[in-house]
């Protein structure tokens, strides 16, 4: 015969709650629910919140207890269950118990737990107010109720946590009175439910609810009716799969293998660069026109040529509109400083890019040595350096202007071996790449670069 558990409460337990407090009823019913389920105590995890109900952990014996911060109990419980359900071969049952205050401050945690359908049971002990801190009203306080912070009566409609849970696809939702003799049975069903379950227990706070607000047993029932809050098991769905099961079933091993392979791609040195000193390259254009991709091709080509190289990008907080800037630094030795003090090469493909590198001061840091390849449509004045205007957008199209301009720069100035960059273009653009490369040759004015070498 396995051991029978009559109670999970501490021997001779003394409840710390006020005389007549709903919490005493709720905790006793929770204990009875556990006795119905007859689980090994270490297979139960009780996560408690802040407030009077937060004193619950010390009342139980043998079960795991986790006393948390205010409102966060559900989130910690979810974390424990996610790890337990997915990473452990165990059958831990996590029960979160909190008050209406905790449910208010931690509402999003309850919402997300319900959406996930993680195997956590949330018990909300709703006594309409914050008892421990002096009877302040909560988001659950009914209309007209007098609390210490609503002396003229509450004017804000009360939250319906069961409806919230229901609208978040909770699989099991119930609401009962703390004094309901069926409460233990309801709690047992909730805990047993394989997925998210929420039980709202309607309680009286004798110190503030009764003395201040006049909420006695009769009034409580009336107020529940007035709020149109039905009692009983409201939802008991069989159509949702518990999160850990769903998570494990969803893992597409092949997809992760592909990602792993892609991630582990290494670059071999296949070219030799004759770069003599560090070079800073800036590509400035419009978001969505492959500016950052073009720089990434240069980065790859540089590393395949045995260089050290860095790349950093800048764009507005929106991802697909406005400017797009990319900076690449190439060096035979390790790159220490990742900023570009004065750029060696600047490719500008659009007005968005020109405006941004004017505004951020980069253009003003060009020197007489800087080579600038600028789209023919742009008006650029008062900038130091050797400027070459090229029909980049017209020749390559808007979203190939960056790679084309960079190709001209690479081919003309030899910042990395031409073959290395061309290979990257072909890898990325396939057949179209050959056309891009041939246009790059057409636009590369060897004389301009040799004069400026």
């Amino acid at each position: 015969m396995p051991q029978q558990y009559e109670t999970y409460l501490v021997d001779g337990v003394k409840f710390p709650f006020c005389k007549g407090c709903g919490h005493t009823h709720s905790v006793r019913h929770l204990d009875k629910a556990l006795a119905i389920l007859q689980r090994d105590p270490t297979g139960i995890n009780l996560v408690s919140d802040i407030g009077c109900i937060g004193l619950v952990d010390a009342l139980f014996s043998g079960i795991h207890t986790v006393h948390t911060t205010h409102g966060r109990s559900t989130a910690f419980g979810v974390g424990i269950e996610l790890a337990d359900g997915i990473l452990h071969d165990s059958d831990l049952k996590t029960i979160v118990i909190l008050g209406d205050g905790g449910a208010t401050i931690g509402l999003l945690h309850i919402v997300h737990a319900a959406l996930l359908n993680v195997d956590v049971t949330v018990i909300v002990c709703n006594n309409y107010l914050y008892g421990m801190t002096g009877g302040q009203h909560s988001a659950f306080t009914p209309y007209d109720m007098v609390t210490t912070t609503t002396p003229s009566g509450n004017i804000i409609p009360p939250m319906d946590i069961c409806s919230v849970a229901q609208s978040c696809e909770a699989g099991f939702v119930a609401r009962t009175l703390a004094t309901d003799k069926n409460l233990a049975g309801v709690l047992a069903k909730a805990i047993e439910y394989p997925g998210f379950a929420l039980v709202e227990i309607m309680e009286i706070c004798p110190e503030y609810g009764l003395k201040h607000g006049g909420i006695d047993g009769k009034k409580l029932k009336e107020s529940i009716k007035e709020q149109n809050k039905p009692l009983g098991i409201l939802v008991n769905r069989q159509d949702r799969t518990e999160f850990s099961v769903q998570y494990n079933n969803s893992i597409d091993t092949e997809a992760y293998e592909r990602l792993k392979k892609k991630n582990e791609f290494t670059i071999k040195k296949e070219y030799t660069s004759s770069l003599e000193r560090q070079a800073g390259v800036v590509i400035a254009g419009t978001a969505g026109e492959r500016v950052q991709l073009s720089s990434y091709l240069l980065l790859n080509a540089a590393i395949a040529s045995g260089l050290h190289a860095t790349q950093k990008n800048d764009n507005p907080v929106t991802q697909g509109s406005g400017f797009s800037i990319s900076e690449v630094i190439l060096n035979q030795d390790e790159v220490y400083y990742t900023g570009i003090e004065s750029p060696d090469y600047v490719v500008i493909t659009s007005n968005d890019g020109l405006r941004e590198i004017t505004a951020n001061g980069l253009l003003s840091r060009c020197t007489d040595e800087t080579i600038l390849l600028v789209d023919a449509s742009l008006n650029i004045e008062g900038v130091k350096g050797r400027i070459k205007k090229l029909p980049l957008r017209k020749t390559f199209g808007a979203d190939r202007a960056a790679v084309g301009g960079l190709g001209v720069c690479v081919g003309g100035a030899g910042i990395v071996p031409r073959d290395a960059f061309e290979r990257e273009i072909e890898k990325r653009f396939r057949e179209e790449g050959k056309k891009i490369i041939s246009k790059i040759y057409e636009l590369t004015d060897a004389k301009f670069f040799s004069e400026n070498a």
Partner: protein
Amino acid sequence: MTDFLSNVRIRSGNQMVAEGALRAGCKFFAGYPITPASGIYKTMIDMLPGKGGVALSAPDEISALAYCVGASLRGQKAMTATSGPGWALMTETVQYALMTETPVVIAMVQRLGPSTGGATQNAQGDVLLVENCTSGGYTIPVFTPSNPVECYELTHLAFTWSELLRTPVVVMLDKEVGMTSEDVDYMRIHDLTTLSRQRIAQSGNGSNGNVDTYYFEHPEDVPSFVPVGGKIKTTVTGSAHNKAGRLQKNSPETLEVLYHLQKKIDANANQMELVKRDVEDGARTLIVSYGITARTAREAVRRIRKNAEKVSWLNVLSLFPVPENKLRNSLHGIERIVIPEENFGGQYRSVIETLFDDQDIVGVNKIGSMITPDEIIAEVV
């Protein structure tokens, strides 16, 4: 020229934080998107499930860290990643992890503040915000990498210390370190030893044969870990408690626990000290730097020495606890300490000044764009 080219990959600092975490045995990641830290979240989502772990999105940063702490309580190594605005939401749970002695690693990629500040702009303005986030002023260990390899190694190390000390540990990057991509030679990564979480034996350690969740003999000892959900009952609490995890107000044992939370870190501060040191005989200036400015400083040092002048440099990798011994041991002949930081107040400098009040300490400070090597050189004597 690079060596060992067969092991060169393109990596950002963010990606290497994620890879370092995986190497350390991280099995749980919960994230919430935020520039400039999203790359860590994305890499963990791409890689962790394929390695048998859990990576998922949380509905906010409060939940993200709470999920991680919950997973760690269950016995799994866990990490999340964020930036300043998300850190602001997490500080409640960082403190919970500290109080409940729950190992967890937080990667913090700084951007320009205050408030939502500049999402895509660099800054090193969260140094004191991160370190001083606890009521009571407990030490949060903080590691500050300056390049991808350090991101990998220091994240791994953050897990090690988090496990050893049972406390939250922060890997603090800045946007430039997190989001800059470059060639990374994996041959340069040191051999790393990964710790399994120490778990308590079945026998009781407490006074009456029970296992006390927070039992220690000496205040500097770290309690052995007992997972929630295992066969030994645990009593976890974020409120002031005795060694058994029972809420108590001002009992001698509760106060002992509160002292212990700091003493276990103080007792290991010497072992945690980690700097990269490049000291030159006869140098009169020491540059102390961390994060992206360590790279700027290194370039400044290279230029200074190219001019046949002398300078010493220290890259602080363990920002907190302050590596006081290693700093002090680098001061021979030094007349001036220069501390470049991309914040306007000189946050780390303010800490160093209290420790070395007999030194001439100057800052190079700037926000909005990177400090340049020449700006550092201008302060070097």
